[in-house]
C-alpha cells in the first residue's frame, strides 16, 4: 500500500518522493530535522545507499486524531526503524512527518 509505494519510489527515483510530502512536512533523520518538501527530498536523495534490500520485519499502524495514521516500519537487515505520520488530504495520502533511525548494530 502506501508503504510499498514509498519504498518503491525510494528505490527507483528518489526525486519523485516529493509527491508524498508536502511543504509543511518535516523529516527527522537520526536526530536531524529537515523542514519542508525540498529539504526532505534532498536529504533522501543524498543518502549513500542506492538500492536497498528490504525485508521489513515489522509494520504497525494506528489511527490518530484528525484522521491521520501513524505507521511504523522496521527492517533488521538494513537496520532501520521508520515512523511516518500520514494525513489524508483530498483523497491522497501525504506524509506530514517522519522519523528515521538507523540501527545497524542494534540487531543481535
Amino acid at each position, binding site marked *: 500500500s502506501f508503504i510499498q509505494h514509498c519504498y518503491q519510489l525510494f528505490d527507483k527515483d528518489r526525486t519523485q518522493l516529493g509527491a508524498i510530502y508536502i*511543504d509543511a512536512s518535516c523529516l*527527522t533523520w537520526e536526530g*536531524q530535522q529537515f523542514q519542508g518538501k525540498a529539504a526532505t527530498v534532498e536529504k533522501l536523495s543524498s543518502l549513500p545507499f542506492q538500492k536497498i534490500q528490504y525485508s521489513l*520485519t*515489522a509494520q*504497525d*499502524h494506528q489511527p490518530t486524531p484528525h484522521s491521520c495514521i501513524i505507521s511504523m516500519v522496521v527492517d533488521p537487515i538494513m537496520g532501520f526503524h521508520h*515512523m511516518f505520520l500520514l494525513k489524508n488530504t483530498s483523497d491522497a495520502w501525504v506524509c506530514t512527518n517522519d*522519523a528515521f533511525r538507523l540501527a545497524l548494530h542494534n540487531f543481535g
Partner: protein
Amino acid sequence: MRDVHKDQQLRHTPYSIRCDRRMKWHSEDEICITTWRKRKPPERKMRQNTQDGYTRNWFKVTIPNGIKYDKSWLMNSIQSHCSAPFTPVDFHYIQNRACFFIQDASTASVLKDVSYKICDDENRKICIFVNHSTAPYSVKNKLKPSQMEMLKLTMNKRYNVSQQALDLQNLRFDPDLMGRDIDIILNRRNCMAATLKIIERNFPELLSLNLCNNKLYQLDGLSDIIEKAPKVKTLNLSKNKLESAWELGKVKGLKLEELWLEGNPLCSTFSDQSAYVSAIRDCFPKLLRLDGRELSAPMIVDIDSSEIMKPCKENFTGSETLKHLVLQFLQQYYSIYDSGDRQGLLGAYHDEACFSLAIPFDAEDSAPNSLRKYFEDSRNMKTLKDPYLKGELLRHTKRDIVDSLSALPKTQHDLSSILVDMWCQTKWMLCFSVNGVFKEVEGQSQGSVLAFTRTFIATPGSSFSLCIVNDELFVRDASPQETQSAFSIPVSTLSSSSEPSLSQEQQEMVQAFSAQSGMKLEWSQKCLQDNEWNYTRAGQVFTMLQVRSGNQLTPGAPCPCS
C-alpha cells in the same frame, strides 16, 4: 453568448471558448489565461449597459480551487498585488471555486493581471478569471432605504447594550417586520448584507450575536462579519440548517470563545462527541464553550518555527520547555510502569487512546525466546492476517490499554540511556519516539535485556504533563553492545541534573547510614533523600523493606526505598 451572464448558477464556465485563441491548459491550477481581449468588448459593454439599466459595469472574479485557500489570506494576497484598493462584493463559493464581484473596468483589468502572480504554499500559481457579469444578487436586490430603516429599528430593539449582544433569533418573523413589505430572509445575500451593514454602522463593537432559528444553510454571507464586527466572541447558530462543519470555515476568522451549534444537521455527522468537539475546535482554537458546555483548556504551544529549522546534532530538537516536558513525562510514566502496578497509568492516557505492540518477524519462530511473552500481543502487520485479531490487538480506550499493559512482563527501564526523538510538533499535539533498553525483572527471562522503540503522540494532560493519544511499542532483543552499556549508571543519578550539594550534616548521615545498612553511598544517599533526611525514618523504611522482600540486600543493589 448570453450564457456568460447566467451567473450565480453552476453553469458558469470560465473556460468555455469565447477567445479567438484557444489556450492549452492542463489542469485548473495551471496556465489558463482568458484572452477576452480578442472578443468584442465595446459592443458587449453597450449591450450590457442597456440590459441592466446600470451605468456601471460589474465583473465577476473567479478563482478555480479557491475553496482550498483561507479567505482572508486569499483576499489580502490579491489586494497586495493591486495598485488600488477594491471592494469585493458577494464573496461566495460554487463547488471548488471562489467568486466575488467588483465594480469597474479598471479594477477588473488590474485583477486580471494579478492572475498567475500569487503563489500558494504548494508553490502553485493562483489564476484569476475576470469576466463581465450582471450585478451581484445583493446589489440587484438591495434593500430600499425605508426597509433599511425598519430593519435598523428592529435590530436596535433586539440589542442589549450592557452585554453588547444582538439577538437576531427568528428575525424573519419579528412582529415589527411582519406584513410590512419587508422579508428578512437571512439566507438571502441581500438581507444578510443589509444586516451586516447595520451592524457595522451601529454596533461595530458587538461581542455576541445570536442567529438561532433563521434557517441558515450556508454561511457565505456571514463571512463578512469578520471585517464588520471583528470583536464578536459569542456566536449562536443553533437550530439552523447547516449541513457540514465545513461551513464554519467561512467564519473562522472570528476569535470565538463561545459557540452554539446544536439543532443543525451537521451535529449528527460526527461519530461521537469528542470528534465533534475536536472538529469545531480545529476551526476555533480559542473556543471555551460549545453548546453551553465548558471545554477542557485548549493547548497553544507556540513553537518558533525557526527552532525547528535548525538541524541539531542532539537527540532533541525543539524548545527547552518541550524537552523538559517530555523528559518529565517519561520519568513519571516509567516510574509507574516499572513499579509493578501499572494501573497508575490510567491518568496518562486519553479516553480514546490507542496502543499497539509489535515484535520483529523472525523472532517469533526461534525458541527460547524472551520475546515470546510479547508475541501474543504483537500486532505486527506482516504476520497478522486475521483482520479480527488486528482489530482486537489495537488496544483502544485507556482502560483496555492499561489492562493489557499490566499483563505484560514486569520491567525496569534504563532511563539514563534513552534516546528521544521529537519529530512532530503542532499546536495541539506532540509526537516523539523513545529508543532505549529495559530489563525484565521477574519470570523466566529475568535479567534479560530487551530493546524498545516507543512512539507516543500526546496532547497536554492534567494529572500527567502529557496525555497519550497513540502509543506504538516495538520490542526486540537487545544487541550485546546495548546490553553491556545499559544500566551501568545507577538510577539515582537520573535526577541529578541539578543536584544540590550535600551539607556537612547530610554527608555525615550518608556515611553513617551506609555503614549501618551495608549499602553503597549512592544508595544510602537516595534512601535518605527519599525520606527527607529523616534518619530514623529512612532506617525504618529500609529495615521494613528488607524484611518484606525477604532478600539479603547486597551492597550496590538498587535501593528499595524509592
